[in-house]
Each structure stands twice: as C-alpha cells, then as structure tokens.
C-alpha cells in the first residue's frame, strides 16, 4: 500500500465527509447568523476583565474578553488549563472563587449586566435563567444526598414546583436525559451511579430550570469516548429542542469543531481568535491556535505525521513504510502473554454467603516485540489495567503465563522479582498522585537508584542529572516539589523515575490521559525520542484512540476482559473488523476534522 494515493483520497474525501456529518450544526449556524439580531442575543460579554486577589497583588485571569452567544447557538471556548476559559464562564454565573472579581467590562445577559447586579438577583437567575453542567461528575454531586432530592431542591427553591410535585418533574427531567428507570434511580445516591449516569443527572440538573443560557464546563472530559458521544448527543439534542444558548468550555478541539457554531480560542486570559468553528479550526490565524491544532492528537496515521514533519520524501523510505506492517514470526519477542486470565472474588451480600468470581481478564494472549510499542485500548472496566498490572507483576494471573525475555514472570524467588522490577517500570496516569508530595524531584528520581543500590551519592547525582536532561527538566527544577510543578513537568519526573534503572519495558498506564493536548504531544514526542535513543519497549494502556495512532505499532482492543481485535495500528484503524472497534473509532470527537487536515 503506497502512501501517496492514500493521502490524496483522504484529502479529497475530507470535505464532503465533513459537510455531511456535521451538516445539521453547520446549517443551524448559517440559519442563526442570517436571522441574527439584537433580540436573539442571550449573552454579550464586553471587554471583560477578571482579577484574582493573591498575596502578590491582583492577578488578571481574563483580560478584555468579548463574545456573543445567541439563542439556540453553541459557542465553544477552547484553551488549555489556565487559559481563563473556566474563569470566564464562572464570572458569567457569578460563581467566581471568593478572591475573584469582575474588574472591568460588562456581562450583558438579556438586558442586565451580571457584573453589576446584586448577589440576590444573581442567585435568582442561577437555576432559572442560567444553568451549569459542571466538569467532573464524580465531585459535583453531593455524595450523601439522593440524586432526585438534589434536583427536587433546585426546583423547589426556584419556585418552579411545590414540594409535593417536584419529584414528578425530577423523574421527567431524568427521563429526558436518557436515564433508564428514572423513578427508581432518583432515589439512589451518587455512588450507585456510573460516571456517565452521574453526568446525565448533572445535565438534567443544569436544564431543570429551562435556562436561556447553559454553561457546559468540560461536560464529558472525564468519560469514555463512547459514553461521551451519547451524552453529548443528548445534550445537543435537548438544547436544540429547547432553544437553549450553550457556552461550551472544552480543551478538546475535535469536540468544539463537532458541537459548536462559533469557536473562541483563549490563551493566558486573552481571546486570541474567534469565528465560525470550521473556519477557526481549518484555517487558524493566530499562532497559538495553529500550535493547538498541531498538537491535537491526530487520527492521521504516523506516516502522515512524519510527512508533516519531515516532508514527503522521508515517508517514501521503505523502512518507514514497513513500519507498522505485520511483524514477522522471528521478531525478537520481549514479553509474551499466553492465555492469561484474572478472576477477582467479590464478597457476597449476606452474612455467610459465598464470594463469587469476577473475571477481569479472560484468556488474553499477546506478544510485545523488543523495541516496539504495543497499545491496549478499551473502555474503563475492559480489563486493560489489570492486564498491565499482571505484566508489571503487581497482580498474579489466575491462569496462563507471562514470560519476559524467556523467563516466567513471578516464578522466581525474591531476588529474581527485584531483578524483574529493574527491567520493567511503570508510568501511571495521574502525575498528581503518583509522586510523593514530600519528596523533591531529585529525591523522587533518585529513589529507585537508592532502592537498587546504584553507586554512591555522587554517581546517583550524576545519573539523576543525566535523566533530568533526557526528559528535559532543568537542574533548578530538581530541587522543587511536585506541588510546584505543572502536570506535564510532573509526568516528566515520573518518566525520569521510571527510566532511572534503565528498564527494557516501560508500561504506560494512561500516562498522558490527564494532560492537555499541547503537553500531551510534548510527552508523546519525548517518549518516542527516548524509545529511539534507548531502544525501549512500550506497553501503552489507554482509552484514547488518537494517542494510540500517534505512538503505537500494534494495537489490541479489549472489551469485557477479552481481546476483540488485534493488529497493526493502520489495519485496525483503517479497516476495523469488529463493531466494537468501529464504535470506539466513531465516538472520537472531531474525526472528520482530522481528516480535513
């Protein structure tokens, strides 16, 4: 399969695909702008500046922001964390943290300036005219109050329903957002809901007062792609039906392109670019938007990536073309997993009831060739993390065997196990919680060296500095503590720590999932560079298919503990064999946008 024609087809088919799949939103956008008039404007932000009081004086989080949201329109604010996008939204709702305030400018909601109205009036508007769908479904519901009661309370306090008939309405609302068996569900507590169900409940809550303006702050960023799609469909369906104006806050460009009429790009408190979604994302004007676009995890295959970086000639190189082809049988296999299952026992409910088995991983086999990257993808609960933990020898397989470089994992004595730890290292998802907050960066990286008796203090220092250099951390940063670092820097520390003992296999469990796109791209580049220089083998565990396409050679798709599809990245992505893989691929927001590049 040659690259040139393929690229061409992509380019040619891109436009029609784009138009057809988002036809509705494009059409409604055109419609809106046609009949755009003053009375249709729900929200107009004028020269808005938001300041936060800090110990070092006022810090400006949003400066001179201007934007307009019309009835029935969705406006997306895109930017990385710290860009001021959430601050702007919270200023609109009057929910800034206590040290934040509107310093200048106006927030016109219909004919009231929300920056000037009394707190009482603001409280009146919230829940009736203004709604919020918050970011994290895990922390935004009161854990000790029934879901239904949390929605009832809003209806009652806003005078929309009486105490007696609030519940009937609540059930209607929950039903409307696609929560099955809403009446019974309303009497349950948040911990009895899955993440997706909680998010549905939060959407019901945000729309309960039939607001004119709904602020949706990263409404699905904490969810799996398939769940994300369903919920976004529900949200846009409802807001379209009700004519609600939506201010959508997101860091996900694909999502913005797919769901919004207008895109507003924010960078360090400034709005750097805004315009119709398609125009901003396909022909970005501002440097930052271009950077954001370049960093967005691409669905285009790695070859296209390389073509973009180095020009077409390189791509035609046979070696690169061979990359991603089926590996031959005689390839040097570093890790071999044979028919491995893991059964966890769950305690029964009654006093003396028996425990039952839960099969997390069910007869999985895979080979990881030395120097390659194998990705395991799947939704949460698919067993991918359990598989990784077994390869890391943290969990023991119930049946089956795992061999590493010819030796059976977990079979040897204590000394063998320690030796194994040296050869296989993990990088975990959350750089915030996987580093000891009381250890300096230096100490965090040095720790494995100490634990495995690596040289003397001077040798260790030299090694830590070498590692810091490899992951592009400065010497000054070595004396800092995790709390003083950004998410990307922390993940660099975690990678340096993993590399300290020169492992052969690095297991990355959702290693870049918590990061912004720009930082994500930097970390992926770093990992790719390290692989090239150090000959590392990677096992990537992720739910993010776009990341897989960027970095992996082979991919395994897991569902409910089983491998449902396996192959080279190109073959799986270009011609998915199972419906499940197709659903996963379809669920990625902004797929058509990527093709348009």
């Amino acid at each position: 399969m040659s690259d040139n024609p393929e690229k061409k087809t992509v380019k040619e088919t891109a436009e029609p695909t784009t138009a057809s799949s988002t036809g509705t939103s494009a059409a409604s956008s055109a419609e809106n702008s046609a009949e755009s008039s003053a009375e249709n404007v729900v929200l107009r932000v004028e020269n808005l500046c938001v300041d936060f009081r800090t110990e070092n004086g006022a810090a400006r989080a949003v400066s001179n922001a201007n934007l307009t949201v019309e009835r029935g329109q969705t406006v997306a604010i895109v930017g990385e964390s710290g860009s001021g996008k959430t601050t702007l939204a919270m200023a609109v709702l009057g929910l800034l943290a206590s040290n934040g305030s509107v310093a200048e400018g106006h927030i016109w909601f219909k004919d009231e300036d929300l920056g000037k109205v009394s707190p009482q009036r603001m409280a009146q508007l919230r829940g009736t005219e203004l709604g919020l769908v918050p970011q994290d479904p895990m922390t935004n519901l009161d854990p000790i109050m029934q879901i239904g009661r949390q929605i009832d309370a809003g209806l009652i306090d806003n005078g929309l329903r009486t105490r007696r008939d609030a519940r009937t309405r609540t059930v209607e609302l929950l039903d409307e957002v696609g929560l099955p068996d809403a009446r019974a569900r309303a009497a349950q507590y948040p911990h009895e809901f899955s993440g997706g169900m909680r998010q549905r409940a939060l959407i019901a809550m945000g729309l309960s007062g039939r607001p004119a303006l709904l602020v949706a702050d990263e409404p699905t960023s904490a969810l799996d792609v398939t769940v994300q799609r369903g919920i976004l469909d529900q949200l846009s369906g409802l807001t379209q039906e009700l004519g609600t104006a939506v201010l959508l806050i997101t860091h996900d460009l694909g999502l913005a392109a797919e769901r919004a009429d207008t895109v507003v790009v924010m960078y360090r408190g400034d709005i750097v670019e805004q315009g119709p979604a398609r125009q901003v994302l396909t022909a970005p004007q501002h440097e930052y938007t271009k950077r954001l676009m370049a960093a967005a995890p691409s669905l285009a295959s790695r070859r296209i990536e390389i073509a973009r970086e180095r020009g077409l000639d390189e791509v035609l190189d046979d070696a690169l073309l061979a990359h991603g082809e089926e590996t031959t049988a005689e390839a040097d296999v570093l890790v071999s997993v044979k028919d491995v299952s893991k059964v966890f026992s769950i305690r029964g409910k009654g006093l003396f009831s028996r425990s039952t088995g839960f099969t997390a991983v069910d007869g999985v086999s895979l080979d990881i060739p030395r120097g390659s990257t194998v990705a395991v993808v799947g939704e949460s609960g698919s067993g991918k993390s359990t598989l990784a933990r077994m390869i890391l020898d943290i969990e023991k397989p119930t049946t089956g065997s795992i061999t590493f470089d010819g030796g059976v994992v977990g079979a040897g004595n204590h000394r063998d196990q320690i030796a194994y730890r040296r050869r296989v290292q993990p990088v975990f998802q959350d750089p915030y919680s996987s580093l000891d907050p009381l250890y300096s960066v230096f100490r965090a990286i040095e720790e494995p060296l100490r634990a495995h008796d690596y040289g003397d203090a001077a040798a260790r220092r030299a090694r830590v500095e070498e590692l810091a250099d490899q992951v592009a951390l400065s010497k000054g940063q070595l004396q800092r503590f995790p709390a003083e670092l950004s998410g990307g820097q922390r993940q660099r520390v975690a990678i340096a720590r993993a590399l300290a003992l020169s492992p052969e296999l690095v297991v990355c469990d959702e290693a870049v999932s918590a990061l912004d796109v720009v930082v994500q791209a930097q970390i992926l580049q770093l990992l790719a560079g390290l692989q090239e220089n150090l000959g590392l083998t990677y096992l990537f565990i992720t739910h993010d298919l776009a990341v897989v396409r960027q970095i992996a050679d082979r991919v395994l798709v897991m569902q409910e503990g089983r491998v449902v599809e396996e192959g080279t990245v190109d073959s799986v992505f270009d011609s998915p064999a199972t419906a499940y893989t197709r659903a996963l691929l379809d669920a990625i927001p902004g797929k058509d946008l990527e093709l348009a590049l």
Partner: protein
Amino acid sequence: MLRLIVQRLLLLIPLLLGLSILLFGWVRALPGGPVQAMLGERYTPEAAAEIEAEMGLDQPLPVQYGKYLLRLLQGDFGTSLQSGRPVLEEFITRFPATIELTVVALVFAIGIGIPLGYVAARRSGSIIDHSAVVVSLIGVTVPVFFLAFILKYIFAVELGWFPTTGRQSATMIATHPTNFYVLDGLLTAEWDAAWDALMHLILPGIALGTIPLAIVARMTRAAVSEVQNADYVRTARAKGIKPARLRSEHILKNAMLPVVTTIGLQVGLLLSGAVLTETVFAFSGIGSFLANSVFRADYPVMQGFILLIAVVYALVNLIVDVSYGLIDPRLRRQQ
C-alpha cells in the same frame, strides 16, 4: 448492617480473650504476686501458703487461667478486697455516674465546639476564627486536673455558684431507682433533687469536656473549610439553592462525617472513666474508684474494671460505626 454488628461482636471475643490473658499474667507477674499484695504487712509464709491453697494459686497456670475464665463467663469478676462486694456490682453502681458526667461533657463539647468550628470556617481569617483557634489550643494544652482545680476554686469555692464535690448535696434526701441521679430526680418527681444532681455535674462536665470541645471545634473548622469549597457546593449554588438549605443540607451534613468519627472516639474515652476530674470533684464514678483501687492494690477491681471498660469502649465504637451508615449512604453498602 446486621452483618457488621454480628462481625464486630464476634471480633470482641478474641479481643477480650487476649485482654483477659494479659490481665491474668499481669497480676501474676507483680513483685511478690497477688498474695503478698493482699497480705501486705501481715505477710508470713504460712499465711501465704494458706491463701494460695484457698485461691488455687498453687495449681499450674493454665488451670488457674481456665478457672478464672470460667468464672468470668459466669459474670463473676471477683470480689473487691476493699469493700468485700462483688466487682461487677461495684461497677454497675458507679457506671451511671460516669455516663451522666460523659453526657454533660459531650453536650458542652458538641454544643459549643460545632458552632464555634462552623463559624470559624465560614468567616475564615476573622476575629472569631482566630479566637476559635486560640480557645481550642488552650483547650488541648491546659492539663485537665489544673483546669478542674481552677474551675472549682473560682466557681464553687469563691463564687459559690456550684457545689464543690460529690454527686448530690449531703442534705438532699432522694431515692435512687436507677442510680442516674438526674434521671432519678425526674422519674420520682423530686425536682429539687434532679436540679441538685445536675448542678453537681456542671463543673466536672466542663472540665472534662474541654479537650473534646477543642478537638471537635478544630475538626469542624477543618471539615467545613473543605466542604464549602467542594465542587458539589458550587454546583448546588449554580442550580439556585437557597442559602439556608445550602448550609444545612450540603455543607453542615457533609462536614459532620469526620466530626462524628471524632466524637465517637471521645465518647469511648470519656466513658472509660475520668480519673483526674472525678478525683478533684470527689465524684464517685468508675474513674475515681479505679484510681483508689490502684492505690490500695485492689487487684480484682483493677482486673475486672479494665475488662469491663474494654467491653464498654468496644460497644461504643460499634454504635458509632453503625451510626455512620445513617449519615453516609456510601458506608451503608460497605457495611
């Protein structure tokens, strides 16, 4: 829920067995052993041998322990050397006094501690906040016996507002069907007796409640500070919840989870007997009696009371654990 209770009660068995072995061994490891302690200055080898035979102390240790355990199971905790009355009876007559004192101390600690901590957190950085911190710091650092003396000196001796010692004035004639003096007064409609008993509880209650007050106030402050900034509180504001409901249903109720844990631990401690406070106020609860029995080498009382206090402590903690489930639905399922 039932499963939890049964599990915890079953766990109590090995706990008490272990404790009984410790107590049994402890008495036998004492210098001279219990016989010498019992005889004191009247000790002669002949008298000792006689008592040893009488008490079965000449038998092998496992046999002795077996017999001791058998007696315990029959509710026989031995006889007090001081009073000659059964240990269990001594405990049962004094325990109501300790419970009364605990209740007053808790009412004081919770009644002031929670509002103080709540206001301190809501007005973080204000004068109320700073004074709450100072008050709770004093509360934990001032020794209880010192505070008890000061309170007694100022409010009982100098001002004469409260009685100085005991559970009831000597001149008060009252009947005691339950040994809870305040309750007795109410049950028998002897209002003046109830009032008199209550007044006797105030000063020791305050002295005893100071440390729990400080701990509860600090815990409440920390918990409310955290909860009021929680995402779900902001979400509740976003859906237009009335401030009163926000405070009572979202903030206070969630903040109470760690506070209840703290209070539970304090109840256990308070019920175990307040030796110092009871001694200063000559209050006849289990604490002062236990302290006296230590001074007089009354080993059966020490053994028996420690065992009984352990049972009480374990049961109180069980009740506290069960009550978490009432506040926190997440624990109901685990339980």
